[in-house]
């Protein structure tokens, strides 16, 4: 075991993992995070906290993770390289480890153009693969990037993201291989709507035997409405929403669309469980966290396994 992470233990013992995420509030009220945590706590193995997603300023992932940790939840600290240089990153890694956070998801982050501070300067001292290398070096070698020894190594279960739907498609698995070589132990993918393409990607993953080296958690996001489906298809870069899916949501009356969205999400999870090399599911119910228990239950993923 490389960390004390509950998620690492569950994946190591061969159980199908369930993770979800909480978007932190746009304010200083910790109750919002606690409320979201309470809702999904008993239905998932770990909860990601996003790091200023879409470059909109929110409560920090770090502090939100501490709040979840205090509730007995196993948080996944999402960290983007957009806003911090290597000095701040290493400092935050030490701080997070000191406060008992033991999962980290290494990301480059959405470009600031999408957020509420489009005039900001981005940092990108490191890219996401460098961030993986950084955490691994600090944990395994006990050394800072600058070469000095660390007194008290930070023990993290290291994660990364993969988007099987972005381009160039053939490069996507190469990029995954680089992340694995850098030290990624688990992967949470972009939302899967196009199962055929995901399966094609997984085949390439298996061809390279990457599924034996890294735990892949398939990402899912339930559609709330036809409007959301259209938005995801047209407006979100790197998102692949097939026309059939749009047609299916369109085919039900407006008041039933959310229900249909949940149903489709559950079906996707059931498909994912059948794919060799998929070791879990990451449910991103955007500002719809209260549906997570329902999705997990309907997907037959309860009760969640125990760990020592």
């Amino acid at each position, binding site marked *: 075991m490389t960390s004390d992470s509950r998620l690492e233990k569950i994946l190591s013992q061969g159980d199908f993992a369930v993770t979800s995420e909480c978007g932190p509030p746009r304010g200083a009220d910790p109750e919002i995070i606690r409320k979201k945590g309470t809702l999904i706590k008993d239905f998932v193995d770990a909860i990601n906290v996003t790091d200023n997603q879409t470059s909109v300023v929110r409560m920090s992932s770090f502090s939100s993770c501490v709040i979840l940790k205090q509730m007995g939840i196993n948080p996944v600290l999402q960290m983007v390289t*957009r806003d911090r240089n*290597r000095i701040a990153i290493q400092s935050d890694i030490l701080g997070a480890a000191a406060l008992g956070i033991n999962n980290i998801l290494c990301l*480059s*982050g*959405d*470009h600031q*153009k*999408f957020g509420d501070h489009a005039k900001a300067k*981005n940092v*990108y*001292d*490191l*890219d*996401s*693969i*460098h961030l993986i*290398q*950084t955490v691994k070096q600090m944990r395994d070698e006990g050394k800072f*990037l600058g070469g000095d020894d660390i007194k008290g190594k930070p023990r993290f279960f290291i994660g990364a*993201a*993969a*988007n099987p739907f*972005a*381009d*160039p498609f*053939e*490069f996507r698995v*190469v*990029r995954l*291989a*680089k992340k694995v*070589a*850098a030290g990624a132990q688990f992967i949470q993918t*972009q939302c899967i709507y196009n199962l055929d393409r995901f399966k094609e990607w997984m085949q390439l993953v298996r061809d390279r035997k990457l599924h034996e080296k890294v735990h892949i958690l398939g990402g899912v996001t339930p559609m709330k409405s036809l409007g959301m489906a259209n938005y995801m298809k047209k407006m979100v*870069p*790197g998102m692949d929403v097939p026309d059939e899916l749009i047609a299916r949501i369109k085919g039900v009356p407006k008041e039933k669309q959310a229900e249909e969205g949940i149903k489709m999400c559950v079906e996707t999870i059931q498909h994912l469980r059948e794919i060799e090399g998929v070791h879990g599911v990451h449910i991103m119910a955007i500002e719809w966290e209260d549906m997570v228990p329902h999705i997990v239950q309907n997907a037959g993923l309860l009760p969640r396994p125990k760990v020592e």
Partner: protein
Amino acid sequence: MIVGKGKSIKDILAMIENHSKIIVAGCRGCVTVCAAGGEKETGILSAALSLAREKDGKPIEIKEVTLERQCDSEYLESIRSFVDEYEAVVSIACGAGVQFMAEKFRKIPLYPGIDTNFIGVTEAQGVWTERCQACGDCKLHITGGICPISRCAKSLFNGPCGGSSKGKCEVNPEIDCGWQLIYDRLKELGKLDQLEIIIPINDWSTSRDGGPRKIIREDLTL
């Protein structure tokens, strides 16, 4: 070349509001090629400023000069004999030119007449695009001759982010994804295996992050 773009007449008029006798100084270097600060633009800007000030009832006397280069002392010297007769200089050279002129002529206010944008190329008639950010440690041999620092909106070193879609960048569908370009080029060269290599964490000390940079060539110094 260094590529720039003229500031708006309104902005320049605000800078020179309190002056009635100025020099507008162009440059025959890069900014001539990108049609931002050459002899022609010096003339156009001067005429526009004169007209506007006349309309406002505050006429202004403008001397037009176009230096061979504003980034070389010897050419800057060409205005020394008359510069003191004026109240200010609007330079439409790049930022380096404006600053060098300010260093040489310490008693006269210097105003930038253009915005200096990037090191780039003339992609088509009237179209200039960025290619280089002068990081001071060229890696083009690894990335198929396409720079990830200047061509990727996030300056990623190890491949495209999840926002690369149909060859375009998530930031703007008019921007090519730098990593798609790198991928395509390496594919054409039969060198896709190069993409498997992790490009290590960058040393930014050779870039601007190390402070203003300096090159000394002992073989050339006097």
